[in-house]
């Protein structure tokens, strides 16, 4: 038995040696380099057979349900197309006005006007129609399950893991079974968006109902309420804000899924417009359409949020605005009968700057070609390639300008050993062992690390951070990936996501620290982050593809752009919400600004920062799947292949794999953060 305090460094060092030995051996033993193909269990065939059986058995039933569901969407589309654009625009302006005043009204008005001017009115309405039908369905379903989960502990224990699953499996992956069961059509988008949008409603309903103070409920009981009255007159109104926040989140989820679902095509909505123009490299049009999506998202978000946060008014005068609103709408409708331009946006008023934008972009890309190439190449040669295939292969005269001679190899080994030795003699044995491991893996490269070694490293990391339970879960999940034959793709995903998360975390934490110390930075960052977070993931891709074309680097940038947000948010939030007395105490003791930051604030904010890392990883994995659209070779690509071929097994295996990786990363980082929180007696609120 090794003593507790040296067990970790010894095991890490052993793992480093194991990786090195197996890598050396893999030259002669193929089974080490690559998991032998005939050991793969091929669950895809079983899954496909299962799915076929399902379609045989339930196909007609699903088709029937799909047929029924299609009608409300059609009606909504018919309604939105039949109504004059001016009436719909006025309606949104009024919604914004009553919700939060003239600013929101203006924003809503400009957004809708933009859709008309740019000539995407019809497509926008098609998207809106699906959202219009799916949100009430998701809200109703979510509310019902939420209430059930609130009253019955047993129901909650069944519902919660299902929600976890629905929210961690990449959205694309479960388009697949829906597509197979329901067949092509708008129903796929509708069903997918309801499935994706109801979990936040469940969570918020349960959360809200739970948070109602006991005394309020007791006051209700003592007033002599029946159970029915207690729910509708006391619990629900007291939980109103949280429940409405659920509606807000459901709406956003629904929209983002509707956009994602347009990938299966044939819907003529705004998401399809973005995709098809992107595929044609018509980036101007793609950006313009993407902007429509961003505007819809922001308008819907702000409006539903405003209604959730709005205090309830005394019921007297609150009715009159709606009467005024109705009158205004009727007035506009009457006017549009007289003035045709108010009914349908005139064709010659449509302004299409896309060709001009494309030309400008082309010119810019040509003009700046050298710079763009330089950025791309240096990132690729000096960061991405070494991690992917290892320094051993990445360093060559072509990339780094010199060859890796045995001399240099020895130098590298000496450097790593020296660094580890230095750490060891500073009494940081664990750090020393981790430096060793890092040195070995970066020389071999992530994709070249023999699978048994990588497997052992990840499982042990899970054990160290979160204990035996997670280690077993991790081992099972990794075994699934290996046996299902998607290990190479998983490692590729791990590599890309790993780099993105690392960069997002480092840069994001730095920005977060800066924002916490400077009001101006904070004020500048906030709207940028809000926008990045409300924007459907798709749209984030567009500017990067425009400049850097398709490839891993573009995907990396897109993932970073999205995943950096929580790192910034949580760091700033954590640093700004420290116990005031501790800061005052440190000030009284005489800490300088830097001492305060490094010695007091950062250590105390560590739990919050760790939670930020957790969210960064989750966001990164979420975006990775979308980023596969612009050329990556990981699990995301597998999901597309599955979706493209209608191959349930392939898509689903990759989807489950992604979800498994996300869940493992989630549990590991959560565990670290929770341990810190308990140690400090602090509780970090989600931002």
């Amino acid at each position, binding site marked *: 038995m090794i003593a507790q305090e040296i067990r970790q460094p010894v095991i890490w060092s052993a793992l480093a040696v194991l990786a090195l030995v197996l890598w050396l051996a893999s030259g002669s033993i193929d089974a080490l380099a690559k998991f032998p193909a005939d050991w793969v269990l091929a669950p895809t065939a079983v899954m496909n057979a299962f799915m076929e059986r399902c379609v045989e058995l339930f196909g007609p039933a699903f088709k029937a349900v799909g047929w029924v569901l299609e009608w409300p969407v059609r009606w909504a589309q018919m309604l939105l197309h039949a109504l004059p654009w001016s009436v719909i625009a006025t309606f949104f302006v009024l919604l914004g006005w009553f919700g939060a005043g003239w600013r929101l009204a203006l924003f809503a008005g400009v957004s809708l006007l933009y859709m008309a001017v740019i000539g995407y009115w019809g497509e926008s309405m098609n998207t809106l129609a699906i959202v219009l039908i799916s949100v009430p369905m998701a809200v109703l379903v979510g509310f019902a399950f939420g209430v059930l989960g609130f009253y019955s502990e047993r129901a909650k224990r069944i519902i919660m893991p299902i929600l976890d699953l629905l929210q961690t499996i990449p959205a694309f992956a479960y388009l697949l079974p829906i597509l197979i069961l329901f067949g092509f059509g708008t129903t796929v988008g509708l069903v997918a968006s309801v499935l994706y949008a109801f979990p936040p409603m469940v969570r918020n309903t349960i959360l809200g109902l739970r948070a109602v103070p006991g*005394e*309020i409920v007791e006051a*209700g009981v*003592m007033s*002599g309420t029946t159970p029915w009255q207690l729910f509708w*007159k006391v619990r629900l109104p007291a939980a109103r804000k949280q429940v409405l926040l659920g509606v807000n989140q459901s709406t956003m989820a629904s929209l983002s899924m509707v956009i994602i679902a347009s990938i299966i095509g044939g819907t003529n909505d705004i998401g399809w417009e973005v995709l098809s123009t992107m595929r044609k490299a018509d980036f101007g049009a793609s950006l313009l359409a993407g902007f429509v999506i961003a505007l819809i998202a922001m308008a819907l978000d702000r409006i539903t949020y405003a209604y959730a946060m709005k*205090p309830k008014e005394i019921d007297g005068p609150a009715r009159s605005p709606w009467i005024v609103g109705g009158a205004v709408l009727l007035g506009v409708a009457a006017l549009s009968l007289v003035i045709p331009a108010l009914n349908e946006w005139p064709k010659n008023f449509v302004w299409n700057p896309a060709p001009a934008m494309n030309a400008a972009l082309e010119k810019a890309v040509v003009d700046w070609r050298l710079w763009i190439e330089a950025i791309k190449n240096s990132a690729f040669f000096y960061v991405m390639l070494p991690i992917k295939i290892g320094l051993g292969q990445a360093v060559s005269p072509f990339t780094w300008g010199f060859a890796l001679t045995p001399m240099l190899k020895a130098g590298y080994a000496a450097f790593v050993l020296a660094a580890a030795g230095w750490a060891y003699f500073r009494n940081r044995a664990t750090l020393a062992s981790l430096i060793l491991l890092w040195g070995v893996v970066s020389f071999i490269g992530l994709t070249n690390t023999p699978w048994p070694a990588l497997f052992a490293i990840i499982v042990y990391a899970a054990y160290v951070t979160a204990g035996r339970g997670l280690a077993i879960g991790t081992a099972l999940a990794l075994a699934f990936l290996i046996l299902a034959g998607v290990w190479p793709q998983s490692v590729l995903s791990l590599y890309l996501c790993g780099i993105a998360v690392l960069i997002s975390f480092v840069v994001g934490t730095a920005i977060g620290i800066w924002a916490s110390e400077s009001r101006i930075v904070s004020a500048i960052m906030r709207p940028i982050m809000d926008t990045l977070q409300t924007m459907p993931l798709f749209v984030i891709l567009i500017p990067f593809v425009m400049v850097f074309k398709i490839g891993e680097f573009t995907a990396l940038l897109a993932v970073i752009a999205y995943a950096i947000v929580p790192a910034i948010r949580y760091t700033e939030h954590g640093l700004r919400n420290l116990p005031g007395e501790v800061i005052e105490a440190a000030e009284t003791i005489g800490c300088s600004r830097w001492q305060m930051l490094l010695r007091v604030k950062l250590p105390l904010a560590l739990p919050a920062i760790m939670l930020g890392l957790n969210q960064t990883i989750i966001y990164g994995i979420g975006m990775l799947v979308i980023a596969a659209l612009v050329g990556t070779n990981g699990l995301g690509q597998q999901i597309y292949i599955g979706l493209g071929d209608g191959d349930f097994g392939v898509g689903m295996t990759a989807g489950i794999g992604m979800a498994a990786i996300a869940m493992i990363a989630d549990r590991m980082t959560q565990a670290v953060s929770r341990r810190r929180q308990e140690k400090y007696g602090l509780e970090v609120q989600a931002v």
Partner: protein
Amino acid sequence: MESDVRSADVKLSCRNVWKVYGKNPERFFDGRRGDVGTEGDARVLADKLRENDLIVASANVSFDVKVGEIFVIMGLSGSGKSTMVRCLSRIVEPTAGEILLDGENLLAASKRELIEYRRSKMGMVFQNFGLMPHLNVLDNVAFPLEVQGMDLKDRRTKAMEMIERVGLSGREGSFPAQLSGGQQQRVGIARSLAVEPELWFLDEPFSALDPLIRRQMQDEFLRLQRELHKSIVFITHDFLEALRIADRMAIMRDGMVVQIGRPADLILNPADDYVREFTNDVPWEMVLTAGDIADPDRPVVAGMGQVSADTTVDLLLPYLANHEAGVKVNDAGGNYLGAMNAMDVVKALASGVPEPVEVMA
């Protein structure tokens, strides 16, 4: 002390009530009988329950609340006092025992009957007010009437009346979040009185308020009670508050009642060291009354002044300082009870000094 109370005068009677949390605590009680024998037997059972990983919130609690009296339950946090008051209205279901309201067993009432009791006979005030955040003051106060199905106009008239009574006229359109703590508790009080209950429960109603406001609210509460004559169960952890307010009080510890009596009884004859600890902090002269000290055997001297029995001792000190012979004490009806002098007061106060200084010979 309890025996001389005719049962007709008792509004609410709590008999051997137990509340035990945990897995299936009923197995330790025969049916719902809480009468497990002597006080000692009850203590043994409570210990046994705790050994079985059950949580005993209240154990073998018995007391009577008389019509029109303020009965205070005093105890530190975790003593089971809040659980107890919730058992009285069955917000918390007692594990065993009996609760008699006007002689009828509340624990035998059906759910429907219980709702009816709460709608007509009980009102409750909460420590953190328990106001509905989504209703304004008027609708909060009218809420108990609303759930009974009273129509809008009637219930608002009634609620306005109550709002006036607690001095909040003009704020009826405000929402709870816009009011100060003291104002919020006034709303809570008005709401609890809206159905004109006979039984009024107050669970630490003034604990969340700052000391000045607390004092004010206590005075207002006593004023209201003088007008309304409710039968009250008042919970507090503040011994001084209990002394100010109580007609009678019970001290609870670890779920059990340690002592029941008038405030002066507790001070003069504390049942054990636990009660004595509380009385140490009390300025006795402000609690003891002439009636507590008056001695019927003391000779009456001509020219002695006379005071009523409920005069507190502190107010008598200046007179006694100047009149060595003392003062006559009469009860409320003017009947002679006894007499007292300065030495009697010193002796009574001396009995409460826990660690007297050693005086050199």
